[in-house]
């Protein structure tokens, strides 16, 4: 059951550690000081696009928005097209950053220097449970962008359920995923506010960076990552400090990689399953079972059009985009994605959306995106596209697409054809599309 309000954080004492910076631990007292300071400085707009690179700055930005009744927007991409759409929906939007705005066409606000902390303890603000604190976005199967409104109470229950399942309380968390992405948002940011963990401010990228970040925080510690980052980390044979658990999400992890990770790190590896719409709803110990166990009070229910999730932190009744086989009331198996949905590097979209964007490029007469044969496990799969666009070069078409879709979805290969292999029903059989691809591993010329 939800309480009418939840505190901004459940870290119990002023000296409790809520995050780690290169300069050392960040206490709850320091955090509340920074939140109040930033909240007093933010410009008037009610919607914030928080692109802070530092996970700690992101955390303070998110919290400052909450205490000042603002809503944080967490789009999955920052293409010019996305920014235009966000501006149209929420004209008072501004961008909180801790570096530069790059080419984001919004009023900017730079993360301020830290103020001195007061001597006296600061109270922890209480936030109404039903207040909407974040907007997250998906592209539905029709290709239109959908906004999902997240309440404070829902996010708190989500974080607490995850923290309990992982045993994350008291752990320092090193995340290779951005705080703006739903998985990183839940598993590094929210869990530091509610769940007793403390996130490392950085976002290590290369294997050597990950080892350095883990070494910069005390044990017990955990690595919050993806199959792709985990594979490159292990393949690099990088020596790592001790880790108490590993967490992976965004794509299915192979059993081979799960076993290798557990053996090298001598720690359990847990996978989290969820979606932007539902938040995280289940976990599993991948070396022990393929069965997912639901988190908290989340339930699944079969309907005529597939399964839905409800209860716990799930807002309303939310369709699941994967094929589910229920084992019992708390456990289920996953049997693949809805064929239209695409997930690359944790970024999700639909083929319908991508096709719509491709066809909207001036000079494109016909065109289609499709998934090639799946890459070997734990590698990032790239999309292919076939187009009829006589006036375009590869370069000019990719350039036009870059303004519309995230770089992760740019087609590779992009095949130019005189016409698409449509059958009598005007459908595009998958086999005909695959036949247009150049042989794997060979240069085009």
């Amino acid at each position, binding site marked *: 059951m939800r309480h009418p309000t939840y505190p901004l954080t459940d870290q119990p004492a002023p000296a409790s550690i809520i995050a780690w910076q290169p300069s050392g631990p960040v206490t709850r007292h320091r955090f509340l000081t920074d939140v109040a300071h930033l909240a007093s400085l933010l410009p008037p707009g009610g919607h914030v696009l928080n692109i802070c690179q530092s996970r700690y700055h992101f955390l303070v930005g998110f919290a400052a928005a909450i205490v000042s009744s603002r809503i944080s927007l967490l789009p999955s991409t920052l293409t010019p097209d996305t920014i235009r759409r966000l501006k149209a929906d929420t004209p008072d939007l501004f961008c909180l950053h801790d570096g530069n705005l790059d080419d984001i066409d919004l009023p900017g606000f730079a993360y301020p220097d830290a103020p001195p902390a007061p001597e006296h303890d600061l109270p922890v603000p209480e936030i109404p449970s039903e207040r909407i604190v974040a907007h997250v976005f998906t592209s539905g199967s029709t290709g239109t962008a959908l906004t999902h409104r997240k309440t404070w109470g829902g996010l708190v229950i989500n974080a607490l359920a995850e923290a309990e399942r992982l045993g994350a309380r008291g752990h320092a968390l090193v995340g290779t995923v951005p705080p703006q992405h739903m998985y990183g948002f839940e598993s590094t940011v929210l869990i530091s506010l509610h769940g007793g963990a403390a996130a490392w401010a950085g976002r290590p*990228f290369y294997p050597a*960076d990950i080892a350095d970040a883990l070494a910069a925080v005390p044990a017990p510690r955990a690595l919050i990552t993806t199959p792709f980052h985990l594979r490159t980390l292990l393949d690099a044979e990088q020596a790592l400090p001790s880790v108490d658990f590993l967490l992976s999400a965004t794509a299915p992890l192979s059993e081979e990689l799960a076993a290798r990770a557990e053996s090298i790190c001598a720690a359990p590896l847990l996978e989290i399953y969820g979606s932007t719409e539902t938040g995280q709803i289940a976990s599993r110990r991948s070396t022990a079972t393929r069965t997912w166990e639901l988190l908290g009070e989340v339930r699944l229910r079969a309907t005529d059009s597939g399964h839905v999730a409800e209860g716990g932190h799930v807002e309303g009744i939310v369709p699941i985009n994967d094929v589910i086989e229920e084992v019992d009331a708390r456990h289920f198996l996953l049997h693949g994605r809805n064929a239209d949905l695409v997930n690359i590097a944790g970024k999700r979209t639909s083929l319908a959306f991508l096709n719509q964007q491709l066809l909207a490029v001036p000079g494109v007469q016909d065109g289609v995106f499709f998934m090639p044969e799946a890459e070997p496990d734990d590698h990032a799969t790239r999309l292919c596209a076939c187009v009829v666009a006589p006036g375009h070069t590869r370069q000019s078409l990719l350039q036009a697409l870059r303004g519309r879709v995230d770089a992760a979805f740019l087609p590779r290969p992009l095949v130019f054809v005189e016409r698409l292999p449509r059958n009598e029903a005007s459908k595009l059989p998958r086999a005909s599309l695959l036949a247009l691809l150049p042989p794997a591993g060979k240069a085009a010329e």
Partner: protein
Amino acid sequence: MSTTPTGNTPDTTPSLAEIAALIVSALNLEMAPSEIDPDASLFGEGLGLDSIDILEIALVISKQYGVQLRADDENNTRIFSSLRSLADYIASQKAA
């Protein structure tokens, strides 16, 4: 379109052609290594690589040359600004 290194440390500088070949094979690109312009950006409007690609390249470079990349090594973006700057970086790390 020359693929001869301009650096003056031929003993340690891996050739541009060699690195180009590594990139093309690691990423399964639809092009010949010689088609990579040594001075064009590897990101965005140049070769169009993204962070997933960069991590794959970093892995083959560490295997091939024993050079560990770090994001705070000055500037990730600068190292990967072109094939030539990547080659120079590898050479500088190998020489160090």
